[in-house]
C-alpha cells in the first residue's frame, strides 16, 4: 500500500510539474531548457555562444567549431531559498556524518572489499537499468545489461566482481535510470530540487527513486532496519571511494550551490543525449545536423 502511494505521488508530481521540454529539440538538434533568471553570475559575463557576432575572429577560419562548443544549459529554480537550505543541510550531513563515517570505514575495509561492495550494489541495480533500457528502446543496452548480469553472477562470485567490464569481455554498464528515460522521451526537468539527504534532482529525475527503491531488491529485505542499514552501508561505501571529489567541487566554486546545480544539469543533459543516441526511436534525431545527413543521402 505504501509503495502504491509512493508511485501515485511521484506520478502526480511529474504530471503537475514536468512540462515537456519546451522546444525540446530545436532545429539544430540541440536541447533547450528553461532559462534561469537568478543564477550563474559567472556565465552571464560570458558571450552568448549562439551570438555569432561575438566570435568575429573566427570568420577567417573555414571550419565549423560548433561541434566543439559547450551547450549552455540552465534550469529554472523557483524553490531556490528552500533548495539552498537543503543544500546546506546536505553539506553539513556530508562533512559531519558521511565523511567521518567514510574515513573510518576506509581505514577498516581494504579497497578490494569496498570495490566488491560497490560492484554488488551495482549488480543488484540490474532490474532498474534493464527496464530503463527497454523503455528507451535501447535493446542492445538491455541485452548488454543482461549479459553483464549473467556473467557477473556466474563468474563474478554473485556480483562481487565485475569480469564483464574487463578488457576481454568489455560489456559496458548501462548507467541509466527512469529519470533519463523520461528525458529521452522529451520530458523536461521542470525545475531544480535539492532533496535533503538525496541531493540534487528535479521532478523528472525524482522518478529515479523508483529505480533506487522499488526496483532495488534489497529494499524488500525485512525487517526494515536491515534494508536501511544496507542503504547506509552503500552510502558510506560509495563516499569512501570518492573522498575529495565533493570537496574539490565546492572548494573551487564561488557559490557551491550554483556550481552543484550547473554540474548536475549539465551531467544529466549529457546523459540524456547519450541515451537518445542509443535509442531506436530517437537516435536518428541525435545522429548529426540535418544538412550532414542530407549530404550523405545525396551521395
Amino acid at each position, binding site marked *: 500500500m505504501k509503495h502504491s502511494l509512493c508511485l501515485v505521488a511521484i506520478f502526480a508530481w511529474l504530471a503537475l510539474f514536468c512540462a515537456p521540454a519546451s522546444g525540446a529539440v530545436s532545429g539544430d538538434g540541440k536541447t533547450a531548457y528553461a532559462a534561469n533568471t537568478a543564477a550563474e553570475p559567472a556565465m552571464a559575463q560570458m558571450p552568448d555562444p549562439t551570438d555569432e557576432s561575438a566570435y568575429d575572429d573566427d570568420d577567417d577560419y573555414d571550419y565549423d567549431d560548433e561541434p566543439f562548443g559547450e551547450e549552455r544549459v540552465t534550469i529554472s529554480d523557483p524553490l531556490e531559498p528552500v533548495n539552498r537550505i537543503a543544500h546546506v543541510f546536505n553539506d553539513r550531513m556530508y562533512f559531519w556524518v558521511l565523511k567521518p563515517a567514510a574515513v573510518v570505514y576506509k581505514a577498516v575495509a581494504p579497497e578490494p572489499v569496498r570495490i566488491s561492495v560497490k560492484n554488488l550494489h551495482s549488480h543488484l541495480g540490474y532490474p532498474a537499468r534493464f527496464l530503463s533500457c527497454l523503455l528507451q528502446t535501447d535493446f542492445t543496452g538491455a541485452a548488454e545489461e543482461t549479459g553483464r548480469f549473467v556473467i557477473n553472477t556466474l*563468474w*563474478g562470485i554473485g556480483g562481487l566482481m565485475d569480469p564483464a567490464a574487463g578488457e576481454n569481455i568489455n560489456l559496458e554498464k548501462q548507467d541509466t535510470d527512469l529519470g533519463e528515460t523520461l528525458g529521452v522521451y522529451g520530458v523536461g526537468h521542470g525545475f531544480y530540487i535539492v532533496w535533503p539527504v538525496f541531493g540534487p534532482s528535479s521532478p523528472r529525475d525524482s522518478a529515479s527513486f523508483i529505480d533506487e527503491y522499488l526496483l532495488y531488491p534489497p529494499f524488500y529485505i525485512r525487517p526494515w532496519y536491515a534494508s536501511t542499514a544496507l542503504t547506509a552501508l552503500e552510502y558510506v561505501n560509495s563516499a569512501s571511494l570518492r573522498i575529495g571529489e565533493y570537496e574539490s567541487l565546492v572548494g573551487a566554486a564561488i557559490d557551491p550551490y550554483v556550481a552543484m546545480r550547473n554540474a548536475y544539469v549539465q551531467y544529466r543533459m549529457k546523459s540524456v543525449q547519450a541515451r537518445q543516441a542509443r535509442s531506436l526511436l530517437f537516435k536518428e534525431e541525435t545522429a548529426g545536423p540535418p544538412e550532414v545527413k542530407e549530404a550523405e543521402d545525396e551521395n
Partner: protein
Amino acid sequence: MKKRLTRISLIFFLVAAFPPGALAGGMFGPPQTLSAAAGGLNTAIGYLYHEDTYKNHPRHKMRHNIIYSQAAWGKSGMWEIYGRLAAADMKMSDAFRSCLPAAMNIGSEFHDYWKFFGTLGAKGFYPVNRFFGGGIFMQASYNPGKYTDETPVLYNGSFFVADLEIKNLWDINLGAGLQATLPGGIRAYAGPFVYLARADARMSHNIPGLPLGTEKTFLKNKSPGGGYFGADIPLIRGFRLNIEGQYTSRFSAGAAISYVY
C-alpha cells in the same frame, strides 16, 4: 517370538552396514593454476554427476548432481587455493528395501533435493619443462545440511511412516596428477587420488529387515581411491572449458567453465 524378532532385528541394524552418505566436492581440475603468473583470480561454475558404491551391506549406489561456483587465487603458475559454494541433491538406491517379508514398504530409493555445502582446496604444481609437469592437490568438503526422506512401511499389519536422516557429510581428497600442455593451450591431465568420506545417519523407526537403525551411525565410502583425468580447453575472451572424469567404483563426470581475470 516377537521379542526375539525385534532383538534379531536390532542386532542386524547394529552390525549391518549402512547406506553411504559420502559427498563429492566437485571436480579437481588441472594440476596447474589458471591464474596469471603475477598472481590473480580465476572463477568457475561447474557441474558434476557423481556416482559411487559403498562396501557396506547391502551395497548401495549413491548419486549426486552437484553444481558449484568457485573462486581461486593462484600465482606463478605453481600454486593455487580455492573455495567453492556448491549444492547437491542425493539419491540412494535400496535405502528403504526391507529384506524381511513381514515388513513391506513402498518405494526403496532415498531421494532429497539440493542442499548447500562448501569446499576448500589447494594445489601445487612443478613444471618439468614447458609442456610437462606434475602436481598434487588436497580438497575437503563439508555439508551442514540434512538430507531426509521418508517411506511408508507396513509391518505386522501396522502402517507407519519412517524417516531417514543423513547429515554432517564431509570428505577429504588427496591426489597427484601429471599434466601435458598440448597445441592450442589445451592442458590434459590425469592421476590417482585417495579419499575419505563420512556422514551421520539416523532412522526414525526401527523397521525389521531395513538396513538402517535408530542408532546414530556413520557411513563411509567403499573404495579408498580412484583415478581422474580431464582436459582444460581455452575458449574465447578469457573463458576456459574444463571436462573431467573420475573413477572410483563407479564413473563420475563433470564440466566447468572458468574465467581468468
